[in-house]
């Protein structure tokens, strides 16, 4: 008589084989529950902060300059949602990992008996969901404030998702790769600084000197802005295929580094 491996493994206390799709999905579902439960107090705050941050970004550019021409207003309105996505992956994820290292729960989390990729994907899911309300509110506030008509198409869905996957991956990889929490914290702050003041997200890349623009054609920030803008407007973003490629490359690189760091046995 044969029993399926799922029923009997022959080891006392272990009734399942630790592999296969089913095991993997179970692991993912458990980690999702784990993440939501452990963040239950912070989650509403995260979402609210995201919404305020995004809406605030959209509004504050208008205070710096009172008469903003329509094209500039469209850039700001479509860039602000991207500015709301970036901090989730690139700053909240590292902050959380930094906190885990301070509290010394980091090693425990990665010792849980689930596939490590399932843990990472669960994190990705949670942080993508956190960012979405902020993106929507930001877009709404910006469109209302600058009184612009957006041409929203379904293209915005893959653009936002890919941006989020990319942001979380990059945030993950350096939060895991940089072991000293204070150094990681510094990197986080530098990224925010660079993104808000020196990136063509809410502003046309034509404002940038040529050398700086070429740097930004390789970095992910301009690519995020381009793909999202293409989903929200008509004719403003061109050569989006290239931007998708750049984003995908960064996402793959980020996930590869993160997977290597997380998969290492210590």
């Amino acid at each position: 008589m044969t029993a399926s491996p799922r029923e009997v493994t022959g080891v006392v206390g272990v009734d399942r084989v630790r592999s296969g799709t089913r095991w993997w999905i179970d692991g993912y579902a458990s980690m999702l529950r784990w993440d939501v439960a452990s963040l239950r107090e912070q989650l509403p705050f995260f979402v609210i902060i995201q919404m305020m941050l995004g809406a605030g970004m959209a509004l504050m550019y208008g205070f710096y300059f009172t008469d903003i021409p329509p094209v500039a207003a469209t850039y700001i309105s479509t860039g602000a949602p991207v500015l709301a996505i970036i901090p989730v992956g690139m700053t909240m994820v590292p902050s959380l990992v930094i906190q885990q290292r301070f509290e010394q729960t980091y090693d425990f989390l990665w010792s849980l008996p689930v596939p490590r990729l399932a843990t990472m994907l669960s994190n990705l899911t949670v942080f993508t969901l956190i960012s979405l309300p902020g993106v929507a509110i930001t877009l709404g506030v910006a469109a209302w404030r600058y009184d612009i008509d957006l041409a929203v198409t379904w293209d915005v869905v893959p653009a936002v998702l890919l941006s989020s996957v990319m942001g979380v991956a990059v945030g993950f990889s350096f939060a895991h790769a940089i072991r000293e929490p204070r150094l990681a914290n510094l990197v986080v702050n530098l990224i925010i600084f660079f993104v808000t003041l020196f990136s063509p997200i809410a502003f046309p890349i034509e404002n940038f000197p040529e050398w700086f623009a070429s740097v930004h054609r390789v970095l992910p920030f301009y690519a995020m802005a381009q793909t999202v803008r293409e989903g929200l407007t008509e004719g403003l973003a061109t050569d989006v295929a290239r931007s998708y490629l750049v984003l995908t490359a960064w996402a793959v690189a980020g996930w590869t580094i993160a997977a290597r760091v997380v998969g290492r046995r210590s």
Partner: protein
Amino acid sequence: MTTASWDLRGGIGYWWHSYRQMVRWELVGLRLVVPISVAVQILTGAGFIFGIDLLFGGLDPRAALFLSTGVIVVTLITVGLVMGPQFVAQQKTEQTYDFLWSLPVPRTTAALAWLTINGIIAVPGMLVALAAAAWRFDLPLVISPSIAPAILVTLFSGTMVGYAIAHVVPSPVAIGLISQVMIFFILGFSPINYPIDNLPGWLAGLHEWLPFHHMAQVVRGGLTEGVVSGMARSYAVLTGWSVVAIAATAAVLGRRR
């Protein structure tokens, strides 16, 4: 008869000695943080000048003047209002907070030492921001002697308000959150880097009573001619905030537990 110490714990000499001890204490305690903070301040100051100019594809002279003089204020107050509370929050987390206040020095010297450290961190960033702005925009700056009290009162009121928040609010997490909201409010929603007319009426009205607009007024008044009026009121508001902040801090720190 005691042999350990003949010093009286009082008098100017004792106070001055304690102040110097506390400055040394803070400098040693923050020996890794101070250089990084100075670098961050320099980067922020210069970064704002170049960044805003870059993003908006060039500024008109009036906007450039407001931005340049505003960034100086930002570099002066972020240390006291944002970094300072975070340091205190960290002391509370690490539970060294109570120990620090048990040191045998007058508590005013600890506060004044902190103000000194703030100045050490903030002033280099301020100077670099001013130089960057002058170089980038070719500004019609007219530096008058009133810049000295303006910088002092701005640094003092900013540091004291941050100090009050850090000591009055017990939870380190709440202090961290307040300081984050504060930097966002200072940079985005305060008429420091741009004229107050750019704000909607109700927000401009609110800023008549908050310290940020007035800090920008007094500093701008010391660097330009004919841009700012009504500085007496600004000094009065800043003095008011300083007094309230000192009173609140003193009420918390002076208490015996």
